[in-house]
């Protein structure tokens, strides 16, 4: 890789240089995951509602919180980079893919006896699929952006998937544990990255108007 490619690579992965996105994303995953586990264990509808509300409210808010923290911490120290928004066609494809996955999962459950609590074999298969998908997503992101610490999160996601496959968790509890485990790993790796970043960039350069 030559100097120009290195500059382009660093710019592409600049969003992750401070660990803030992982830290906040990890906290959001934990805040959704642990209530899911509690809801599955106790069967309390109130906790299920809390988990659902957390999922609906937290993930859109996450980007806003990350942006605010980056404004206060990162942009003042090492500058601001804005990335191109994904093309509408790409976002449309992703939305269509998500709907198709949902419909396919619902059909699979219906064909398998209609157990929508997903505590049977289909639920276990879906749980393994979700976990494996998350692990692969982290590997691909780590490889594309060349951020080694994302491999750690991928390994944790893979291990959590295997363990949840071997356990007797139902789908909801299994996904809850997956989110909580991956979230915890993200919080640790993101926290370490943030501490490292702050120790390397303690001073705030001032731009002259």
């Amino acid at each position, binding site marked *: 890789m030559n*100097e*120009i490619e290195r*500059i*382009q690579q*660093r*710019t*592409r992965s*600049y969003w992750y240089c401070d660990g803030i996105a992982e830290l906040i994303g990890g906290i959001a995953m934990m805040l959704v995951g642990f209530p899911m586990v509690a809801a599955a264990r106790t069967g309390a509808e109130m906790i299920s509602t809390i988990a659902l509300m957390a999922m609906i409210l937290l993930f859109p808010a996450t980007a806003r919180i990350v942006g605010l923290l980056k*404004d206060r911490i990162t*942009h*003042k*120290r*090492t*500058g*601001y*980079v*804005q*990335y*191109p*928004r994904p093309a509408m066609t790409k976002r449309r494809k992703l939305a269509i893919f998500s709907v198709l996955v949902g419909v396919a999962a619902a059909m699979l459950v219906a064909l398998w006896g209609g157990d929508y609590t997903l505590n049977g074999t289909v639920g276990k298969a879906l749980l393994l699929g979700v976990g494996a998908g998350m692990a692969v997503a982290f590997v691909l992101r780590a490889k594309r952006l060349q951020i080694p610490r994302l491999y750690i999160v991928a390994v944790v996601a893979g291990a959590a998937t295997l363990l949840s496959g071997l356990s007797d968790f139902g789908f909801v509890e299994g996904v809850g544990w997956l989110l909580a485990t991956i979230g915890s790993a993200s919080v640790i790796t993101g926290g370490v990255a943030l501490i490292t970043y702050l120790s390397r960039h303690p001073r705030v*350069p*001032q*731009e*002259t*108007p």
Partner: protein
Amino acid sequence: MSEFAFGSDPDRVIHEPARLKIMAVLSVAESADFTYLMGETGLTRGNLSVQLTRLQDAGYIDIRKEFVGRSPRTTAWMTTDGKVAFDAYRAYLTQLLRATD
């Protein structure tokens, strides 16, 4: 046979290493501010300002100065002409490397 002509010159505006680094950053980002460009290129404040002006005069980048809160922020982004010129420069270098292989 290669179509590369040894008589042709690269784009002199982009060919200069400091400006090439700036263009490399802006080729993968929507925009970047002065602080980031200074850190990434290793240029001094004055030198970066001169190089940005040169690229802006060539029509390859646009620059906006604004205040974010109470802090000034100078942001640069590549124009369509800049993207064309950068792609052409990369094509020139690729052809040069192939021709000398």
